């Protein structure tokens, strides 16, 4: 069923299987999901004692928002692994060869391409939009402790700013610089450092001393935001570059 992988868009019959097998497959899956649904309907849900446990433990977690508490305190180990997953994708997509010959000068992460045709409206918009986005990111990061928000949402917004910048076409991001590598791995590095510190302070890893729980969480949140933003931006730019490259290849 997985054997057929198509990459050419122009193929008309995009269906992988012959119509007969598709039909049979459809029936089989509907039957299965119906059974599953029936089982779920018949079964009753467990008592929400975990929810009550989480709420009355909230005051110890150093944050008010229960989700952030769960994310960064009760089940912080999951988040640690999750950031590691992000690092995996970032590293695998990181371009290794320098597109331009190694310039003598120190390479900037963000460099101005000085395009000959500059669209004034676009430049004006960017001037306003990008700082706003960054501030908004900061705010989201901060409110994470109290209301839904946090590192991931903030990272996404900041990455949005970067995307806007690269779409404008005036600037180019160079991903071979050391600063990029550091920013990508910053989140995971800080998380591991904090975990190690806690292991020494409180004897068990990831157990924040209750008075300082809030500040530890904040440190992790900031680092995570930086990494998430960098990773998302990297993903977007690299995929865009790939698509442009094949487009150029096509119409040659």
């Amino acid at each position: 069923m997985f054997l057929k992988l198509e990459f050419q868009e122009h193929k008309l019959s995009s269906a992988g299987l012959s119509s007969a097998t598709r039909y049979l497959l459809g029936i089989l899956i509907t039957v299965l999901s119906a059974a599953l649904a029936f089982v779920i309907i018949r079964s009753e849900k467990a008592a929400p004692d975990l929810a009550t446990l989480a709420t009355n433990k909230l005051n110890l977690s150093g944050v008010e928002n229960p989700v952030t508490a769960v994310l960064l305190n009760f089940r912080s180990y999951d988040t640690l692994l999750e950031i590691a997953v992000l690092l995996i994708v970032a590293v695998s997509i990181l371009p290794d060869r320098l597109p331009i010959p190694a310039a003598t000068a120190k390479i900037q992460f963000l460099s101005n391409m000085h395009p000959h045709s500059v669209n004034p409206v676009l430049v004006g918009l960017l001037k306003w939009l990008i700082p706003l986005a960054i501030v908004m990111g900061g705010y989201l990061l901060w409110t994470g402790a109290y209301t839904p928000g946090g590192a991931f949402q903030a990272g996404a917004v900041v990455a949005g700013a970067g995307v806007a910048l690269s779409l404008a076409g005036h600037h180019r991001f160079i991903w071979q610089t050391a600063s990029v590598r550091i920013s990508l791995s910053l989140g995971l590095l800080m998380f591991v450092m904090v975990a190690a510190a806690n292991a020494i302070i409180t004897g068990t890893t990831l157990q924040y001393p209750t008075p300082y729980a809030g500040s530890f969480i904040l440190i992790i949140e900031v680092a995570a935001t930086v990494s998430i933003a960098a990773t998302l931006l990297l993903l977007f730019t690299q995929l865009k570059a790939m698509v442009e490259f094949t487009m150029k290849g096509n119409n040659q």
Partner: protein
Amino acid sequence: MTQDLLYSIAGIVLFGIGLFGVIAAAHIIRKLIAINIMGIGVFMVLLATARHGTITDPLPHAMVLTGIVVAVAGTALCLWLALQIHQLDNTTSKDQPQ
């Protein structure tokens, strides 16, 4: 038919559709979209369990958040691979027949 039960069933249905899509579709992008649909289906069931009448259980929310990030990571990697294959096909497709 409480509200969250409805959501759960919707989630299951989405999961089914996604599964069908992954198996049946041939093109890679269709498959990726189908996988995302399945992911969303699972997350819906997860969120449905979070709702206990008045009190909501934060744990499923955290799990969904993590799930989303992981889904994004997986999809990005698959896209990257697909594009690389696509690029290889185009540059070489001229001299070497597919």
